[in-house]
């Protein structure tokens, strides 16, 4: 996030897009609700009538994957109505004039044809955000998990730049990160293009720094992404070490993924449970879990916080860092003789400019938000206050692109996926916590009542959902939460493995999977598959 969580009750106008915050980041959503109680207005762009949409002033039920068209049209209206922050654009941005010219062609009427919203609502949303003294944008993977994920994010940046809604209290472009330490995994350098602290691997000075730190020659080119690596399993990639990820279930196109992992000569998995992914490994190492592990995590607002062990682990489970450092020593490598999480974290701080002012003891109370460039620095709750990292904020001239796969006569429905409040991800944790199943014990496909009738489905009955990648059976629920033409399911339950269907391409820049837009066909089926059989959807789905 560009701004701290504490800013979330301060905007005049909140713009949430592709974020189901009341279910996926409930505590952050409470801050937005406080802003609303104080009189703030809220725009919500989401295909579904999610919880946030229920309390929004404007809900834009855009068709999945059409975000860029909506955002271009909003920019058009803001420019047309003279709501551009000329001072900010002049002083702190580049290519502003080109951008204002670029968006002249993108009227709300043009966008409405693509995003299937009322042009008057697009107009209204643009006037609200454009007219705000403090306008704040919040998004989640509903923005990034598309073939145009980067375009989506840059479209949001364009809106914030043209209205000067950056670098001030209650403003910003704020991604809500979905996992407790997904920010930290990037911070720590688990990226093919960056060393720790987002130091690019292609910069000679960085290469020199890590050559010296690690005492060996380093590759000068960026590595491949996980997506490419999975594509190349058995053909260039022959071994994988996977830590704490149920790749088989969470990644798109499950059959492809299963095939990839089985093509490896060696798969090593580190996890706390025998996940579907662990089951196909050659070696599985037992890791310590939350509340058993001392360590550090970084939250969505870049706050670096301590994790503390409260209980001993079961049996012989060990911290991930210990497992990997022991494995490195067995490989015969020097320099992996670490004795504690503190030693590991302090080495990371020493090598990372954004953590340079931090160490294990200094983060004890969790008051620092990175960057913390030197000792004594108070941290940076709000980014871009005085200047942008690269000098000026650059407008991007973007155009709308269709998803890689679009609906057809054969596959006439959009499937979009996500999470639900009580269950987290593939239920490896919430499914093993007493009581959570009382709130949600099975997956149901959310279908608009009109679609239900049209497709001959019954509320509470079963449907076969398919596309060329696979098929599965799922119980159907009629709800106005889904717009006509779009159905929704979470990926939480193993008997409804929606990722046998997803997989319609990747963003060309980040290679983020397009998990949010996937054409499918639906037809009624009489008998449900046997419940409780692990992977029953898979067996049924071999098509």
């Amino acid at each position, binding site marked *: 996030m560009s701004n701290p969580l504490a800013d979330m009750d301060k905007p005049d106008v909140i713009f949430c897009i592709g974020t189901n915050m009341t279910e996926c*980041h409930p505590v952050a959503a409470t801050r937005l609700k406080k802003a609303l109680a104080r009189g703030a207005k809220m725009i919500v762009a989401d295909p579904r009538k999610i919880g946030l949409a229920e309390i929004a002033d404007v809900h834009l039920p855009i068709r999945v994957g059409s975000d860029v068209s909506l955002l271009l049209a909003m920019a058009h209206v803001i420019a047309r109505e003279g709501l551009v922050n000329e001072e900010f654009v002049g002083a702190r941005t580049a290519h502003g004039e080109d951008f204002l010219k670029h968006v002249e062609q993108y009227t709300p009427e043009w966008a409405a044809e693509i995003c299937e919203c009322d042009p008057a609502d697009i107009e209204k949303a643009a006037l609200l955000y454009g007219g705000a003294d403090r306008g704040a944008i919040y998004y989640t993977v509903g923005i990034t998990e598309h073939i145009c994920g980067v375009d989506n994010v840059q479209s949001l940046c364009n809106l914030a730049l043209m209205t000067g809604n950056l670098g001030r209290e209650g403003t910003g472009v704020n991604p809500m990160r979905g996992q407790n330490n997904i920010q930290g995994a990037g911070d720590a350098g688990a990226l*093919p293009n960056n060393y720790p602290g987002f130091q690019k691997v292609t910069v000679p000075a960085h290469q020199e720094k890590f050559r010296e730190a690690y005492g*060996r020659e*380093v*590759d000068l080119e960026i590595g491949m*992404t996980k997506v490419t690596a999975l594509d190349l399993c058995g053909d260039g990639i022959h071994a994988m070490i996977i830590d704490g990820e149920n790749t088989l279930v969470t990644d798109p196109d499950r059959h492809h993924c299963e095939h990839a992992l089985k093509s490896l*000569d060696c798969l090593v998995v580190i996890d706390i449970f025998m996940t579907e992914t662990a089951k196909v490994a050659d070696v599985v190492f037992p890791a310590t879990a939350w509340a058993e592990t001392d360590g550090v995590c970084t*939250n969505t607002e870049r706050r670096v916080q301590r994790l503390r062990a409260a209980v001993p682990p079961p049996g012989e489970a060990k911290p991930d860092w210990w497992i990997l450092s022991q494995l490195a020593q067995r490989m015969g490598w020097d320099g992996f003789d670490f004795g504690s999480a503190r030693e590991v974290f302090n080495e990371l701080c020493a090598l990372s400019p954004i953590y340079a002012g931090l160490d294990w003891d200094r983060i004890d109370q969790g008051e620092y938000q990175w960057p913390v460039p030197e000792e004594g620095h108070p941290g940076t709750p709000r980014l871009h206050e005085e200047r942008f990292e690269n000098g000026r904020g650059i407008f991007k001239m973007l155009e709308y692109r269709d998803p890689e796969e679009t609906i057809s006569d054969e596959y006439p429905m959009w499937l979009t996926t996500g999470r639900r409040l009580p269950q987290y991800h593939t239920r490896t944790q919430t499914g*093993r916590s007493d009581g959570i199943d009382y709130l949600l014990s099975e997956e149901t496909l959310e279908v608009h009542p009109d679609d239900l009738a049209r497709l001959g489905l019954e509320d509470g009955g079963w449907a076969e959902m398919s596309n060329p990648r696979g098929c599965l059976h799922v119980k159907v629920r009629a709800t106005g939460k889904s717009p006509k033409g779009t159905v929704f399911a979470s990926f939480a339950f193993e008997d409804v493995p929606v990722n046998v269907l997803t997989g319609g391409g990747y963003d060309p820049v980040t290679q983020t999977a397009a998990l949010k837009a996937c054409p499918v066909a639906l037809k009624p089926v009489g008998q449900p598959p046997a419940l409780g059989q692990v992977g029953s959807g898979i067996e049924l789905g071999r098509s």
Partner: protein
Amino acid sequence: MMKRNGTPATNGARLTMTLDGEKVAFTRGETVYEVAERHRKEIPTLCYDPRLEPFGGCRLCVVELEGARNPVASCTTEAQPGMVVRTRSAALEVQRRILMEMVASENRDTDVDPMHGYASQEMADLLDRYDARSGRFEGAHSGTSRPDDDNPFIKRDYENCISCYRCVRVCAEQEGDYAISVMNRGFDTQITTEFGGLLKDSACTFCGQCIQTCPTGALGDLKALANREVPGETETTRTICPYCGVGCSVDVMTRGEKIVGVLPAMDGPANEGSLCVKGQFAFDFVHHPDRLSTPFVRDDDSGKLRPASWDEALDRAAGKLRKVVKEHGRRSVYGIASGRAPHEAAYMMQRFIRAGLGTNHIDNCSRA
């Protein structure tokens, strides 16, 4: 009245009032209660939660204000320049004691297990402080419990309710859920959902905030209470919730080697005391029998995974990795770090790949 936090003092003049004979400064918008709290006056309250709008319901926080005919509730009285306030006097102590005796008389139990929740001992503590367990107002009770609510998280024992409305207010003001409200008045007062149904059928999200603010144990954490017989003293450890990226601070309650519950950290920088259903209640996966407690290797004969020692598993993994490197080169090994494990895990994974193999074939799970 509305609190106006942080409103700057007019003209920069220093605002002062007299508190128990001492001249003290305050900022405009502060309540008398807040000023007194800063000076550690320990004014008793039951309906007060610092995160909520002042309510003025329990009347325990009354103070003597010069010029006022009767004692005033300090939580709803804004500090004014020149005010003269006494937080303690013989008369106030008598009044507070009687109030506590009356409050306690409404309830079936005056003492509840601390596992009920964060604030559950507040009433019992005040009964001790004011020596108010006389029982002389014994009589009618208020509130009807809901043992029919079969939810596994929130105990609804309204026979121990004192109508402080903290649960209703935290649900509305802190959570914005408005799942519960107050029905009727006097001894008939009842905390209820719409149409008096189960929490499951209301707007309740089971965040547990009502439990944690309840000062009597009328609401209780059923998951923690299920562990009330676990032997040992309850200890707490401050850590961060294991679910989404908000990074809520929690205090994990343990007895011996067992996690017995979770308390929200009121001073957590990201959450300021809030939690959701997962952070509050989904903690016991840690002790699930499915947890891996030993390494596994794939058996050469059966082709199945079987338990192994660390030595065997580490040698097996290293041997296989070395073979792959030998046959296909160092660029044929790929590392995927977790977004769920701490920094040290991700850092060590990238160190393994970069320092061990010299490649950049490392990623984390953020692309899907």
